[in-house]
């Protein structure tokens, strides 16, 4: 226990039982291991696509991609989010966790899930992480293990969510009878985690039954997978917002100046809008009613509302706070942040990646553009800004900040500040080249997009840029994971006591003309408009007219 810091977060963690801290520490260690493995696999796939490290067998290449998806998207994100949930619960409760044994059980089940996934991937036909039963009709055993991996994952999610939920309920009762904004957000988020477990079961129970011979081949697996995936990728986005809410007071002293009721409403709206926005994954599916396509695009816009609101709440509060403390000029409040902290750099990079990823996301939700962009490298090109640049960086920052309070090390080293920027640079190359290649039709999920010379030569060049970007991403992320992992394992410099910055009086903050975030949003809307227009112009310039089917 190292209560030599005065941040409220370390005090909350100090109030946990020692076993609770061990649990959180173990969750993050397992999470970091999954991320380390997954990022190497992702790098390998990128190098294979560039033609620099192509495995002998195509099966091997697709197995790498399968495990990349499983290890980072399911294992890393789940374990790190489980850790974050317990941290949020501790922050609200300021006393030992409830049902901590379930958390341990959840961790064990997650390890079992990983082993099952590994065995299922290495044996049998190469599946990708969606595990389409169509592809394994003649090799159900390998697929069975893979599907059981998802079954275990569903169970793991439930076990990992329940201690957080129970602790939060206790905290509310013990407190003033209502949650802080963060407490409410964490509870609702954990609820969505349970919904993801339902979606997992919904998708893979039929597949499991089929694989053991107890049912027909699930015909709508693709649809069910889209629903699951939809849940699973909004979940960490909400988790990221909560991480920002948690970290900002720690880093800057700034709290939301909009009141906790407003923040709760924003979190609630986020959940309200997740289900109706799932349609956009389906735009390319044959057989969708045209009205559904239009509706899908329109509804997808709504998820932007709480996302932008949360962004404005966080950033405007931050700016108002900085100005109230005397920062002057357009960007003085940014300069006045504590740039000696790695976390400040990581979160700043995350905000930039959110902007880049967000602009591209809103291009992709236009149903008419599905026939140009869906199933191309545009998709991984854009979503790595989100999954890596926003979510992973933010979760890593939480892990980094709490390491000392969990009994690990975590002293700062100067070079760590550059890592988020190195990752962002890599992402930029990967993402921009990927988006350009994708808009030219270069498909995702192929190991060799040269098509024996029949593909446009630009695809080869762009794949090289993607490969270079991936190298930088992997280098930056690898070093970051290594450093934080070492701190968790007790290596590295000792943490120095940090004082939490003082908050300024709210009345003063409220008087500030904090326009920065609003201007940023206006700029983003302009960029989205331009990008959408560009995509339409490209689509209409193609020497082909197509009507009907899907995507148009």
């Amino acid at each position, binding site marked *: 226990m190292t209560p030599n810091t005065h941040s409220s977060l370390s005090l909350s963690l100090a109030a946990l039982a020692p076993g609770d801290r061990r649990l959180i520490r173990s969750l993050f260690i397992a999470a970091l291991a999954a991320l380390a493995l997954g990022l190497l696999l992702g790098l390998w796939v990128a190098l294979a696509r560039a033609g620099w490290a192509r495995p002998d067998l*195509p099966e091997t290449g*697709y197995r790498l991609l399968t495990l990349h998806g499983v290890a980072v998207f399911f294992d890393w994100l789940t374990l790190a989010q489980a850790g974050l949930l317990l941290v949020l619960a501790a922050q609200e409760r300021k006393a030992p966790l409830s049902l901590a044994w379930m958390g341990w059980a959840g961790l064990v089940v997650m390890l079992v899930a990983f082993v099952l996934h590994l065995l299922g991937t290495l044996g049998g036909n*190469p599946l990708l992480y969606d595990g*389409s039963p*169509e592809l394994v009709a003649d090799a159900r055993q390998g697929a069975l293990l893979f599907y059981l991996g998802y079954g275990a994952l569903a169970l793991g999610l439930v076990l990992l969510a329940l201690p957080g939920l129970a602790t939060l309920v206790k905290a509310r009762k013990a407190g003033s009878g209502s949650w802080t904004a963060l407490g409410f957000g964490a509870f609702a988020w954990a609820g969505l985690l349970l919904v993801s477990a339902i979606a997992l079961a919904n998708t893979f129970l039929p597949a499991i039954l089929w694989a053991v011979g107890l049912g027909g081949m699930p015909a709508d697996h693709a649809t069910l997978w889209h629903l699951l995936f939809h849940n699973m990728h909004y979940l960490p986005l909400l988790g990221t917002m909560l991480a920002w809410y948690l970290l900002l007071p720690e880093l800057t002293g700034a709290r939301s100046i*909009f*009141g906790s009721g*407003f923040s709760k409403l924003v979190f609630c709206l986020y959940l309200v809008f997740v289900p109706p926005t799932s349609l956009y994954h389906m735009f390319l*599916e*044959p*057989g*969708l*009613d*045209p*009205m559904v*396509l239009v509706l899908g*695009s329109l509804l997808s*816009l*709504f998820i932007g509302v*709480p996302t*932008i*609101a949360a962004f*404005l709440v966080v950033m405007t509060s931050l700016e108002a706070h900085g100005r109230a403390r005397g920062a002057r000029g357009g960007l003085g409040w940014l300069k006045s942040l504590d740039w000696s902290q790695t976390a400040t750099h990581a979160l700043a990079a995350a905000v930039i990646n959110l902007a880049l990823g967000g602009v591209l996301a809103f291009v992709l939700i236009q149903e*008419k553009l*599905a026939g*140009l962009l869906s*199933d*191309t490298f545009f998709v991984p090109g854009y979503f790595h800004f989100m999954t890596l640049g926003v979510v992973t960086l933010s979760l890593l920052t939480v892990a980094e900040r709490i390491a000392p309070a969990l009994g690990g090390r975590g002293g700062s080293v100067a070079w760590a500040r550059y890592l988020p920027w190195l990752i962002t640079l890599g992402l930029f190359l990967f993402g921009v080249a990927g988006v350009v290649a994708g*808009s*030219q*039709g270069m*498909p995702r999920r*192929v190991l060799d997009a040269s098509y*024996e010379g*029949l593909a*446009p030569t630009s695809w080869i060049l762009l794949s090289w840029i993607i490969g270079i970007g991936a190298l930088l991403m992997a280098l930056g992320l690898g070093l970051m994971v290594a450093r934080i992992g070492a701190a968790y394992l007790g290596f590295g410099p000792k943490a120095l006591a940090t004082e939490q910055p003082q908050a300024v009086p709210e009345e003063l*903050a*409220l*008087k*500030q*003309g904090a326009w920065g975030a*609003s201007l940023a*949003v206006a700029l983003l*809307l302009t960029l*989205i*408009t331009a990008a*959408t*227009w560009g995509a*339409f112009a490209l689509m209409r*310039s*193609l*020497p*082909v*007219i*197509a*009507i*009907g*089917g*899907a*995507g148009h």
Partner: protein
Amino acid sequence: MTQALDPGRSLPTRRGFVAAASLGILGLYGVWAALGASGKSGKDESDGHAGHGGEPETASSSGGHGGHGASVGGPSTDDFRRLTEDFSKRWKQQDGSVRPGYVPEPVRSEPDPHAGHDMHAQPVQPQASHAGHAGHDPHAGHDMQAMQALAPNAHAGHEVAPLGNADGGNEVYLMAYQWGFEPSWLKLEAGKTYRFRMMAVDASHGASIQMGSGSLITRLRQGVLTEREITFTDKGSHLLYCTVFCGAFHDRMTARIDVV
């Protein structure tokens, strides 16, 4: 809430302002409308191309099964396989390409009064050997004329057509399987509207066409007939490729479409 009345509060720190600014994203719908992308699908896409869009039947209301591009009540995978084979056989050219609507099958076992004539017509097309460059073929125009000249004979093909519909080669059957397409080499005419009838028969596949600076992406679900009306406006040779992961040799799954 009292804050709205609080004169000490700056505009960007007001909740109402944040709410309004967040709703601003919905303004993107206006952008889509301006780009002509908000209406019912299918219609607007043909706006600028009345010449092609004027067909009485668009794929989004494909006849018979009262639904959309894809139908539940379409042919089974076996039926589709057979239809595709018939289609390929019917329009197979000497160079191995499949060119719907071109000339009736030259080598045919059925007694055909015009067969001899057809056979005779074929060998005088010397470009068959270098048809790989059909897109730039100096004889392309000649091909077209030949086709028109021969068109009256097409009724012969019509009689034996196993497809049961009197099309003038407006339909294209495309079957996607592990791992390839049938036909694997199509020759189509620029400016002519084809009705593509596509199906993935063993697992889900894609049938995407690389069109230079962008692609026309199509997803095919196993056993689901998907129809699109496609008009190529320029001549050229295009890569047809699979864009839905379908197993180990997914990235070898290609075919060629020459627009002549």
